[in-house]
């Protein structure tokens, strides 16, 4: 069974535990034996309330967890390599090109003093080389691919000239199309956006995942988003994984009382 699990999972988190170090040097445990797997080619949702540790775990995958976090145990296996043992160079080889990430507030996540096109082009040259001009061309193509109107003009604009939804599209273009990773992690990508924009963005994510054969990890507190789009669901609460399973199983037969509460709170139970 264990062997089978390795074969169909791109990323495996095993018994990941850790704590925040507070100002006095004391440790406040926040993650308890977190384990879940991201199956190759599937969309996995990690669901939980704010503070459940879902983002922290995801940030750890890329080694960009907050500085005060101290790991006490666990492994994060990507293609059977433990990411937690990689040095700076090794991590950098993974970041972007193998595992890429989209953040919550896209307007803040883009650098305010460079044009969006330039930022995409920079990342393109970082991973694929080539001339500035060619990279810019790919950036415009990527913006166009995520349905940003007038991509040439938009590429010359700065993040503050983008709406939240537009900025998130650009961010997705950067993380999914420019980087061309095998694993895409999205940390609350639709939080803070209008409802209609949210569903557009989700459609885009699903479409890109399917068409490019990505493995996608969607971190969200919004069960509504999850139901229609995801294949697998991981439910986290207070730093623990309380339930994992296929989306269908979780929504129709939630086993854990916390999952049941979460579902009833968002009224998905009746809907399902």
């Amino acid at each position: 069974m264990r062997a089978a699990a390795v074969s169909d999972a791109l990323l495996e988190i095993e018994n990941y535990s850790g704590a925040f170090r507070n100002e006095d040097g004391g440790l406040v445990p926040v993650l308890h034996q977190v384990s879940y797997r991201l199956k190759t080619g599937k969309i996995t949702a990690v669901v939980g309330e704010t503070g459940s540790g879902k983002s922290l775990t995801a940030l750890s995958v890329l080694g960009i967890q907050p500085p005060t976090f101290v790991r006490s145990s666990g492994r994060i296996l990507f293609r059977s390599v433990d990411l937690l043992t990689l040095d700076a160079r090794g991590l950098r080889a993974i970041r972007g090109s193998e595992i890429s990430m989209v953040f919550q507030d896209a307007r803040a996540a883009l650098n305010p003093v460079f044009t969006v096109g330039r930022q995409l082009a920079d990342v393109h040259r970082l991973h694929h080389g080539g001339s500035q001009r060619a990279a810019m061309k790919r950036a415009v193509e990527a913006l166009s691919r995520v349905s940003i109107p007038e991509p040439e003009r938009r590429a010359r604009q700065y993040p503050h000239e983008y709406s939240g939804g537009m900025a998130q599209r650009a961010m997705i273009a950067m993380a999914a199309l420019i980087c061309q990773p095998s694993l895409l992690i999205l940390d609350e990508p639709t939080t803070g956006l209008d409802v209609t924009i949210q569903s557009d963005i989700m459609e885009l994510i699903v479409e890109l995942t399917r068409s490019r054969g990505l493995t996608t990890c969607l971190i969200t507190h919004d069960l509504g988003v999850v139901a229609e789009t995801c294949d697998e669901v991981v439910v986290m609460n207070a730093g623990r994984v309380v339930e994992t399973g296929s989306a269908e199983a979780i929504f129709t037969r939630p086993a854990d009382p916390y999952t049941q509460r979460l579902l009833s709170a968002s009224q998905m139970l009746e809907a399902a």
Partner: protein
Amino acid sequence: MSRLGYMMLRRLLWVLPVAFGVVTLTFFMARVFNGDPTELYAPPEATDALRAQIRARLGLADPLPVQYVHYLGNLVHFDFGVSFNTGQSVAADLSDRLPATLELGFVGLALGIAIGIPAGVLAAVNRERWPDFALRGFTLSGMALPQFWIGLVLIWIFFVSLHWLPGPVGRLPIGVALPPKVTGFLLIDSLLAGRPDLWGLALRQLALPAITLGISTAAPIARVTRAAMVEAMQSDYIRTAVAMGHGPRAIWFRYSLRNALLPVVTLIGGIAGHIFAGAVLLESIFAWPGLGQYALQAIERSDFAALQGFVIYASLLYVLAFLAVDLVYMLVDPRIRA
């Protein structure tokens, strides 16, 4: 563009009330506080009639409000009056001395920036390690030490003890004639005159005051650069850059520094405003014939016209420095440009 033009115009117009306020403040302060300078210019045995004559020549015979209106009237024609001290028009005096102050200021500020920004970046990327602590010691001393003391110590080390650099006797060694005046900057005029030897002499004279100025401006610049870099490096957009796989060099120098420069620009503008108004004490130590010395003499000799002329120049410069900061901001920060 139109919005940029509008902002610039508003800024420029704001110069007027500030200048008016400064003029008025200086005019009355100089007279109320400084009293009557007639005694300074009259021989001790002067008769009352002679005194009255001198007073009239100094323009002090009229009642104060009349003098004030008269002065303002002249100012409109850019007539700052005549210095009691030099007997020249104040405008001519100021423009004579301006190049010395500007030359020292430019070189000193350039040194300060060239040292301060890299030092701040170095401290920020090595935060809480030894380069950071070393820099903290440097900025603390740079800000805590009086500029004139730094100057004296440098003179002691490099002139008195080591004989590497010439003594504090002004812009050129004593007895060396100035090159023909074109720009007023000796480092430029000497080359225009085809005198590389003079260029070398001028540079050696400039070295110590410029280094002093450089040290004391580098300290606050480094401090602000460090703080701004640290803040930029904790931002969301830097986290993105890291997640996309950018290396440390790109993260520090391309992505963080550009953002961190914004507050540094503001600081440099303020420093420039002060420096180009003449570093009074520094010029006095190095016998540098600039505006600072001129102002000091004007104060010591109750030279109203000269003093007022200088203060107007200095405050305009200050406002202009901040105008320049706004302009640079617009170049660096796209959010304002829009």
